[in-house]
């Protein structure tokens, strides 16, 4: 019974994945204009970033409020290497990721001994330092006015110059990011990371080197950010420091939290929700409240974040899963009592859905 249940679940997942691929593949053909496609490209780019953040925050339970800096390192690394040194985009992206990994490693080994709020503040500080670096190293980065002329992404002379081509490129990377993250989460290392989140003490007594794995996952999530940053730089072809500051870091955390921290597909949902909402607010707020300034959307996001934390603390994916589980009248309570051995009957009602994966 349980076996077949798992099997059909697996099949269902596989089907869902195929449907997702099919939608992804045909989406550009259905789009009325490139404006929407451009937004979906951005959703893809942010998703890569936020998947990395979810690995760090949702699975390993470590907070980072400075992740936009790694996104920026990827963007600047790719931009500088291609514009100033004439590198090809792909090796430039890899080199930028390597540099970002090194920076994240140095930040990680010095901050990851800290916990919770202290860690949040330390990562925030590191992010600010890198942001200031982008701003002040005018000779290298162009300072606050940024620099332009970044070439489109190309592989072996094949240029991703059109909106549709870039769309496929970015979502190919999103799928890679998802696949890697899924494999990792369902592996020995992934379990060790989740165990750290559950009880660091017990994990250590099971032989899990907490600090080492925290540094590794921190570096990995920074590399996710860097790849996203490179894709961003080659997409917009112009970069300045402003998208890589503290507010961006907070927005990434917001996207992660809304999508559901401990999930792999959640980030995509969270990013899509936040970006769509931003567009809507930009269109709606000036109509409804003509005197409102540009920062108005931040207030909305604050409110939304509070609401999500209260009503769906596991984000949209977790929340939807819970509703689903409740509609199916509780997997654990019902089934186990019917089939489990007599000794096990004394189960709490539970199954409020925290089950998850």
């Amino acid at each position, binding site marked *: 019974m349980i076996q077949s249940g798992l099997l059909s679940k697996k099949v269902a997942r596989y089907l869902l994945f195929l449907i997702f691929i099919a939608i992804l593949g045909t989406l550009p053909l259905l789009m009325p204009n490139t404006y929407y496609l451009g937004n979906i490209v951005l959703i893809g780019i942010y998703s890569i970033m936020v998947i990395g953040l979810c690995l760090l925050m949702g699975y390993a339970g470590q907070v980072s409020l400075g992740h936009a800096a790694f996104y920026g390192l990827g963007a600047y690394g790719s931009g500088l290497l291609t514009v100033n040194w004439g590198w090809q985009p792909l090796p430039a992206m890899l080199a930028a990721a390597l540099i970002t990994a090194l920076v994240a490693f140095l930040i990680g080994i010095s901050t990851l001994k800290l916990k919770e709020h202290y860690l949040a503040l330390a990562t925030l500080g590191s992010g600010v330092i890198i942001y200031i670096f982008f701003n002040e190293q005018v000779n290298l980065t162009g300072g606050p006015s940024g620099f332009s002329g970044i070439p489109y992404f190309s592989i072996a002379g094949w240029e991703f110059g059109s909106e549709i081509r870039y769309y496929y490129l970015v979502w190919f990377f999103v799928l890679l990011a998802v696949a890697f993250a899924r494999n990792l989460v369902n*592996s020995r*290392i992934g*379990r060790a990371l989740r*165990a750290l*989140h559950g009880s660091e003490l017990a994990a*250590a007594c*099971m032989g899990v080197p907490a600090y080492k794995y925290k540094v590794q*996952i921190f570096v990995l999530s920074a590399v996710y950010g860097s790849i996203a940053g490179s894709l961003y730089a080659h997409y917009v072809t112009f970069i300045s420091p402003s998208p890589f500051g503290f507010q961006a870091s907070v927005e990434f955390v917001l996207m992660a939290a809304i999508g559901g921290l401990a999930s792999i597909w959640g980030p995509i949902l969270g990013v899509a929700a936040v970006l769509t909402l931003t567009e809507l607010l930009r269109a709606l707020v000036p109509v409804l409240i003509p005197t409102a300034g540009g920062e108005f959307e931040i207030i909305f996001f604050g409110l939304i974040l509070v609401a999500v934390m209260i009503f769906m603390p596991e984000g949209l994916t977790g929340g939807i899963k819970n509703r689903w589980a409740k509609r199916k009248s509780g997997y654990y309570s019902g089934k186990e009592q019917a089939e489990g051995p007599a000794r096990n009957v004394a*189960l709490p009602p539970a199954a409020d859905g925290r*089950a998850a994966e």
Partner: protein
Amino acid sequence: MIILEVTGLSKHFGGVTAVNSVDFHVSRGEIVSIIGPNGAGKTTLFNLISGVAGPDSGSIKYNGEEIGGMPPDRIAVLGVTRTFQNLQIFRNMTVVENVMVGAHRLGRKGLLQAGVRWPGVASEESFIYGRAIAALELVGLGEKKDMPAEILPYGEQRLLEIARAMALEPDLILLDEPAAGMNQGETNGLGELISRFPEMGTSVLLVEHNMEMVMAVSHRIVVLDHGSKLAEGTPLEIQQDSRVISAYLGEEVF
């Protein structure tokens, strides 16, 4: 053959001496219990051996190697693990995933290999899964493998901790009040289970308040009082020791 040798071990917290120059040893295949009134220093002793806390002085030798002051994950990798009196279940994971973390040291594949499903990762995963299932069946939780760990009843969470620790294939397991909160039937089952550990290659150091179980399973008992060793001997010797009886004065323990 001595597997664990503790000599002159002390630990102070401010002005309080929690463990005071304690000596004892565990031989391979032995079940040794540590008993004593509340506050005698039993849990502190466990924390020192498992690396959760560092000793102030004295030595803890495991297979001849000094492990005093080592971090817990290194001690665990050497083959010494523990359970916790105040349960430390990974509440965000399923039952079998909890136990698979216990088998962590049996794997070698790292983060990048896991992410790209390098050849060998799948077979290592299934090996770890098999170990975890075997450990769950050992404690009788095999049928609950896919449940979220946090919805298990209290007594079964204790068994889950034991399964998780046994999945590590430890040479020495430290059990911190494993029978707390269990009914008589469960406690008896637990006693039988622990008695089988030595034949699986796992020696046992046990802290437990249930004297019936301690007397039934222990080969040797160490009595602590106010951080110092009061007595040591077989269950029979301990039951007849006048110092032990007076330390427990007023309590009907035996």
